[in-house]
């Protein structure tokens, strides 16, 4: 009766649907973001900057759909950069590690990819991938405990992306707005709803205390974060989709495939 083989279950429902959906959803995002991040081109269309490329630490000039040098934090792309296929001279490769680390160590995504990718377990009461010496998050995966540090960087990125959204209201100094402005404004808002509902944030903002009644402010903040935390999965997916869509939209506009409707008439 107790068959311990992988995937064995007495469940009669479509238990495999959820892990397959996660596999496809996350797999598609990983494939697209890796491809888009390595392009190093078509990430900019004044005044829109793709979130995959922000902040621009270095900028390589003369690239189609690339940002002007004035947008760079540290100037022109360094000549010493090795520039092989895993480390192309793309501004995205310098910064994507930060949002990636936040999602990688996120308590929701851990559930999602442990189920979909490592089958530990694929679904409830379905045979897990057998590991003779299962260590959970005590062995190699101890790094998951540093999620709060990934959170700190994710919060910094919220400010950066809101700054980019604010910049998207100004074309050559003239105030206005376009579809791209709206897309860029929704992006950090989705990310904020996801980031501020983080389990570590919930702990740090008030959850670490045993006495809620000792600080009404702390308790009030904890309750608000709890509201977002209860919807963490929803915002995890919405923000993931939207950040990918934002890059896609700017890429398409920058390549001239679609037109951005805006008040500047460009």
């Amino acid at each position, binding site marked *: *009766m*107790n068959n*311990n083989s992988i995937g064995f*279950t*007495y*469940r*009669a*429902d479509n238990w495999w649907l959820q892990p397959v959906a996660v596999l496809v959803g996350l797999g598609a995002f990983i494939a697209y973001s890796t491809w888009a991040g390595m392009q190093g081109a078509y990430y900019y269309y004044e005044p829109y900057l793709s979130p995959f490329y922000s902040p621009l630490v270095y900028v390589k000039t003369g690239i189609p759909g690339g940002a002007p040098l004035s947008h760079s934090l540290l100037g022109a792309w360094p000549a010493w950069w090795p520039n092989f296929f895993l480390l192309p001279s793309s501004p995205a490769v310098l910064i994507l590690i930060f949002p990636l680390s936040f999602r990688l160590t996120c*308590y929701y995504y*851990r*559930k999602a990819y*442990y*189920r979909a990718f490592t089958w*530990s*377990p694929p679904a*409830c*009461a*379905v*045979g*897990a991938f*057998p*590991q003779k010496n*299962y*260590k*959970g*998050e*005590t062995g190699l*995966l*101890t790094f998951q*405990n*540093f*999620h*709060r540090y990934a959170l700190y960087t994710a919060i910094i990125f919220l400010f950066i992306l809101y700054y980019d959204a604010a910049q998207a209201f100004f074309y050559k100094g003239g105030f206005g707005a376009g579809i791209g402005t709206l897309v860029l404004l929704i992006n950090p808002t989705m990310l904020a709803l996801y980031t501020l509902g983080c*389990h*570590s944030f*919930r*702990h*740090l903002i008030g*959850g*670490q205390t*045993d*006495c*809620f*009644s000792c600080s009404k402010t702390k*308790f009030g903040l904890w309750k608000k974060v709890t509201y977002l*935390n*209860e919807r963490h999965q929803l915002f995890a997916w919405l923000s993931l989709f939207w950040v990918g869509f934002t890059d896609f939209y700017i890429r398409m506009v920058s390549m001239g495939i679609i037109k951005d409707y805006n008040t500047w008439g460009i």
Partner: protein
Amino acid sequence: MIERNFKIWRGNSKGGDFVNYKISIDEGMVVLDALKLIQADQANDLGLRWNCKAGKCGSCSMEINGKPKLACMDRVTDYKEDSQITVRPVKTFPVIKDLVTDLSWNYEQNKRIPPFKPKPRENGAKYRMQQEDVDRVQEFRKCIECYLCQNVCHILRDQEKKNKFVGPRFMIRLASLEMHPLDTEDRIPAIKNEYGSGYCNITKCCTEVCPESIKITDNGIIPIKERVVDRFYDPVLKLFRVFSGSKK
């Protein structure tokens, strides 16, 4: 009256197999009613544990069509008329007879946890707690100890790490004690080293099967894991403790 097919695991610690039964059921019957009917009419020796039949005692935990559930809360009519309903004992614990398993390992884990240790009363004054402080720990007190979460936890069920991890039920017991405003016992080092909080990989099956809808992972295990991070993994907090002389 509708005829329904049941496939029930019959056996003991030495082994067993599924046996088919066909019974007529009334509308509104739960799986436990059906099992009692089979026991009364067709299999008098069917081993079955139950008590309240109201989802409050946690006795009738079993796996119905592969899902860990309370038999008394699972309506037969929720399953397709032409389908067979498979009933087996919980997988994680050893079978005694038929659908009855030996849950004593859980009671042993419970004994390992240092009990509630309130701070001393000041001049005989009464303990006072505010509602917001009560609410958080009260959620964990809803546990009826059905052990469905222990059964579905893959660390105990598939990886067989009962010697490393106490399981979700006792993680929330630890959470209820650790988050209690009047408690003074420090269980955080033991939560990491003895009860194995790091073994939990947050796949949330415990929360999915909880008949009391306790948010075991979000409100119990993750906050406890974060407290372990505070104490053992956060380098800034470690440095802060060095300079402030604080032990916690």
